[in-house]
């Protein structure tokens, strides 16, 4: 049996910000969902099922919040699934939703991911005390900084590469009205001289903590035919997981990421991602992860990723634009960050990315990762339906 092709016909997101004090949790997710429905010109009655994702429930202090959010998302009387795969969850959630359409279980599915980090504190949520364990760190930056150092040692990358990424993504964010950070006065020099938090990671090379939500409407071929705007077609989707820590783990370029990329390219018939993919939305919470993932995702040979960044290839007008939306470095409602990558990739191939549109983008990659660089989810979307 062949799978039903899956199309993205509606995309909505909130204006991401440090604290959305004007809305409840329900109001936040609702805003993104309504925008996705409007984009698809559909109503709640057109939605067959809802798939929602977010990172740990402790962030908002609501256990399995989808139970409470069901009413706001029109899910009463419908199937509702809740996904949690750590930082990759936004991507995984979209893939679970796409699976329902591909399997012809449902025709039109609303998928949504969110985080309202201002309800608590990200440092607290990520660093709950654990008895018998030695507290050494708080937050994610210190966890990932040693891996960045390992990357620099392994590749000989000059120390200024990370700043280039941060400066690029923050400038891209100025073109994205929904991005959290709009740092109009930022200069490369300011990035380079920002405080060193977890050496080698500087303040301006880290992601913010945001309140935000992202929603998409996924549908089948018939649904796509009725869509008012061009759909994005899913050409491949894959998830891969490996253990958190293990003997032989490559923390710089985890095999789960490489395998996941290989799977998604195979599905999409892509043999040379560097040439065939027009735009990439990758999950870069700390600037150095751009060159690291460029290698992990097969856009550059091992040790060469930083050269793409350095030469401007990943700029919005380069020949492999990475994070034209501004990326996670500019917007990070953790549970939604992965779905934002998937949605922004879809916006690009739909030609609906507004000022951060990459000219002529026809095929784009959305990428998310989470946990200890162990959970990966990716999709490739294009402006035309997949073959057969």
């Amino acid at each position: 049996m062949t799978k039903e092709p899956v199309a993205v016909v509606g995309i909505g997101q909130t204006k991401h910000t440090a604290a959305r004090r004007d809305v409840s949790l329900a109001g936040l997710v609702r805003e993104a969902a309504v925008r996705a429905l409007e984009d698809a010109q559909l109503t709640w009655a057109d939605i067959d099922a809802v798939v929602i994702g977010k990172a740990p429930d402790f962030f908002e202090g609501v256990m399995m919040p989808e139970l409470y959010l069901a009413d706001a998302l029109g899910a009463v009387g419908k199937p509702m699934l809740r996904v949690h795969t750590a930082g990759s969850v936004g991507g995984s959630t979209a893939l679970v939703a796409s699976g329902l359409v591909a399997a012809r279980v449902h025709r039109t599915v609303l998928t949504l991911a969110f985080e309202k980090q201002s309800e608590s504190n990200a440092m607290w949520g990520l660093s709950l005390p654990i008895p018998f364990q030695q507290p050494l760190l708080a937050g994610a930056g210190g966890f990932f900084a040693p891996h960045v150092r390992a990357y620099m040692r392994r590749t000989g990358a000059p120390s200024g590469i990370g700043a280039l990424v941060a400066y690029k993504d923050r400038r891209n964010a100025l073109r994205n009205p929904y991005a959290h950070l709009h740092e109009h006065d930022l200069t490369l020099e300011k990035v380079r001289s920002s405080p060193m938090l977890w050496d080698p990671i500087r303040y301006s090379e880290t992601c913010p903590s945001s309140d935000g939500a992202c929603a998409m409407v996924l549908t089948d071929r018939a649904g796509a035919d009725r869509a008012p705007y061009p759909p994005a077609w899913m050409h491949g989707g894959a998830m891969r997981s490996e253990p958190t820590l293990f003997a032989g783990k490559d923390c710089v370029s985890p095999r789960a990421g490489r395998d996941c990329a290989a799977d998604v390219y195979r599905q999409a018939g892509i043999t040379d991602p560097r040439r065939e993919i027009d735009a990439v939305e990758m999950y870069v919470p700390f600037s150095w992860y751009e060159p690291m993932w460029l290698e992990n995702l097969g856009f550059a040979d091992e040790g060469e990723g930083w050269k793409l960044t350095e030469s401007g290839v990943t700029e919005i007008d380069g020949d492999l634009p990475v994070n034209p939306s501004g990326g996670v470095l500019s917007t990070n409602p953790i549970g939604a960050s992965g779905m934002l990558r998937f949605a922004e990739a879809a916006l690009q191939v739909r030609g609906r990315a507004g000022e951060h549109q990459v000219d002529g983008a026809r095929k784009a990659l959305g990428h998310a990762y989470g946990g200890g660089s162990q959970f990966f989810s990716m999709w490739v979307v294009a402006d035309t339906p997949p073959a057969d």
Partner: protein
Amino acid sequence: MTPAPSPEVLQAPLVVEFPFTRSLGPVQSAFLTGLRTRTVLGVRTTDGRVLMPPVEYDPVTADELSDLVEVAPTGTVTTWAWNPAPRRGQPLDTPFAWVLVRLDGADTALLHALDASGPDAVRTGMRVRIRWAGERVGAITDIACFEPYDGAEGGEAVPHSGEFTDPVTGIVAPARLDYTYAPGRAQSRYLKALADHTTRGERCPSCRKVYVPPRGACPTCGVATDEQVEVGPRGTVTTFCIVNIKARNLDIEVPYVYAHIALDGAGLALHGRVGGIPYDQVRMGLRVEPVWSEGSRYPDHYRPTGEPDADYDTYKELL
């Protein structure tokens, strides 16, 4: 090879506590602000039902709701449950009934407590009214509880603007949960060995790699590790970062070096602090050994041994 001893079961209290700050949105803001002034609001749906408490979205139609109405502080019990042993955080600290109450003028019911003399004094269909809290702040607890009431029935719901001076836009919801944490068999063995200042990893019977700290399973083979292997005490810094940001609840002076340290004989690096050397002189490949402090379960930090640095090729597979 040392057979694993039967572990003592380690346990310790784990408190998960945070005062969550919840923004309310317009409908919930109006309702909770209303309670502060003893005004009880519901919301009218597009098909004319009155939902109380007022919700932002219609559970039947998914419509966004904003048509606020005022309902009576009196109502009827639709179901109840007698709670003989009130628990932490509940509205009353003497035995009470949980009730769903449909207030006069409303079509749906509110969950709250009913102060009654005993279960025989409670029945479905009984009439009750709100007992207001003495001090009201704009929260569901501004309703102290319900109490029996034999007065007149309230009327129909009447329109209300929902506007109040100085509206409540957020609540702080403290939440504390108490757990007893138990790290399990393998971690308990590891922790017990640490008390003697020895670090014991566990070897996977399948791939033969040594896990430090052991986590109960070899994560690549999915089988229990069971053979204890002493590792270290010396090791190699494989990578690190310099922490310049002081974390709350963490009593370590900055800057300090947080390092991945592969103890000799271990299949992967563990995490520790490096001291006894200026932070800006720490490097990949540095050879270190643990420094124990009195009464501490873990080495306080690792310090340089003075050996020559390890060659990159000897630890690059551990990065």
